[in-house]
């Protein structure tokens, strides 16, 4: 275990230490992150990283295979473009959790901000609390599960992918619709939530794309 005290260090200095430790295969514990931006960006090895406090914008962005635990809040664009791996937030997720993520799992045990999973292409995001407006904005693939309520314009311009909501849906976005859950969906929810240690008896609703926008009969 390598411990990195982030106090007084720049994000660049912290990231250099993270990458050195990750390359050596060490488990990494970061203290006093103080919501600094860009932490753990660009790590392409299966590093195990724990942040003891809040992190700022773009934490764990552009990564492949990291296992990250954040014992605090996360700022905007957590896991931006991540390829694989897992991020657990034991606090609040900021706006745009998992934008353009291509794989892996993000679990937020608090609420998430606006534009959850914006343009995500694959992977899974689970939010234990509520999510803000425009969740799944221009989402192209993957799955989002929100156990709580979800804000206005949910699934706005959804292209592909699925959003499961346990609580209330304040409003649907353009080109979004609510579909009946299939047996496969129910099985997916049951197993996924069990894997994350989450329990709910709420009846889920599924938001999908009506495919009337951003779907074209002819290709260029």
């Amino acid at each position: 275990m390598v411990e990195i005290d982030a106090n007084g260090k720049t994000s660049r200095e912290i990231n250099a230490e993270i990458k050195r430790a990750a390359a050596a295969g060490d488990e990494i514990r970061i203290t006093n992150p103080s919501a600094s931006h860009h932490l753990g960006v660009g790590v392409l090895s299966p590093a195990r990283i724990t942040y003891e406090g809040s992190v700022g914008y773009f934490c764990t962005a552009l990564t492949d295979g990291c296992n990250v635990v954040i014992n605090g809040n996360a700022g905007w664009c957590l896991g931006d473009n991540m390829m694989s791996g897992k991020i657990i937030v034991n606090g609040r997720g900021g706006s745009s959790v998992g934008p353009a993520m291509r794989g892996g799992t993000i679990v937020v045990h608090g609420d998430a901000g606006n534009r959850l999973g914006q343009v995500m292409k694959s992977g899974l995001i689970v939010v234990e609390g509520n999510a803000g407006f425009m969740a799944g904005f221009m989402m192209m693939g993957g799955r989002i599960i929100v156990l709580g309520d979800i804000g206005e314009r949910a699934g706005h311009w959804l292209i592909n992918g699925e959003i499961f909501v346990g609580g209330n849906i304040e409003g649907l976005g353009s080109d979004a619709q609510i579909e009946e859950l299939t047996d496969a969906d129910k099985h997916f929810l049951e197993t996924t939530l069990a894997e994350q240690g989450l329990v709910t008896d709420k009846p889920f609703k599924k938001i999908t794309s009506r495919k009337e926008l951003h779907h074209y009969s002819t290709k260029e």
Partner: protein
Amino acid sequence: MCGIAGVIYKKPTFVGKTLVSMLSGIQHRGPDSTGVALYGAEDECLKIWLYYSGGVEISTVTGIIKECLNKLGISIRSIGWNGDFLTVKMDEPESLDTVCSELEAISGLHIISVGHSLEIFKDEGFAEDIDKKFALSEFMGTHGIGHTRLATESDVDVRRAHPFWANSFADVAIVHNGQLTNYYTLKRKMEHKGYRFRTDNDSELIAVYIADRLSRGDNLQDALHLSLENFDGTFSYLVSTPNEIGFAKDKLGAKPMAVLEGEDFVAIASEEVAIRKVFSDKQTGNRYWEPGPKEVMTWLR
């Protein structure tokens, strides 16, 4: 992109130091200029902060100011300066508008703030620069708001730096991140009501708009809600009055904001990193959240 921050305590403290630390955490959002609006103990005198950009010696300018105010029959309690910034303490005038107009008729003189408890300090540069220049860390008060500016649609200079005082209304200030896309329409409407604008900055309009609503009997929360009906664009802004601070966020929620509420304080900033410069995330019992679109909140000291 700009950074905004605000804090309100139940009891007087070194509020200037708090805001300087918070603003240093979001300096990356705005490196052009930095400023704070601070509220200290209420003074029976009116305090006016001025910025002078003319070519005359400051000592001569003070003489011109005295002459101007004497002509208006206003008793001056004190007049001092710090570099290009001057401060005048005076008895309450019959017409604040007249005083402001006469002072701004002096070539190169610009009003930065007017108030019994409000003082605005702003300049080009970083938070630490204005702290050194104005000894902000020594300022005792209950609340204040601050700003780090990345200039987009108007020049980089002191007059266009934030916070903005609400022209014609003492003790009201705002800081703003974003842009009003219907600025010119609203400005024309307010000019028809008789308001004059000193800059081409949309943030100045927010200050005057809010103060106008307050003067018509709205409470701050009502004024903020109404602003969301009338303002177009992507924005978040903070307002401060002698007893209160509040925020409003646009309907797209495109501009960030984080709030930490404790037992005896509330801290608001564009990013959590600013809040964590002062308030540790190890301290339990505080409530942290990010306001959503169209959200408005106010806090009394």
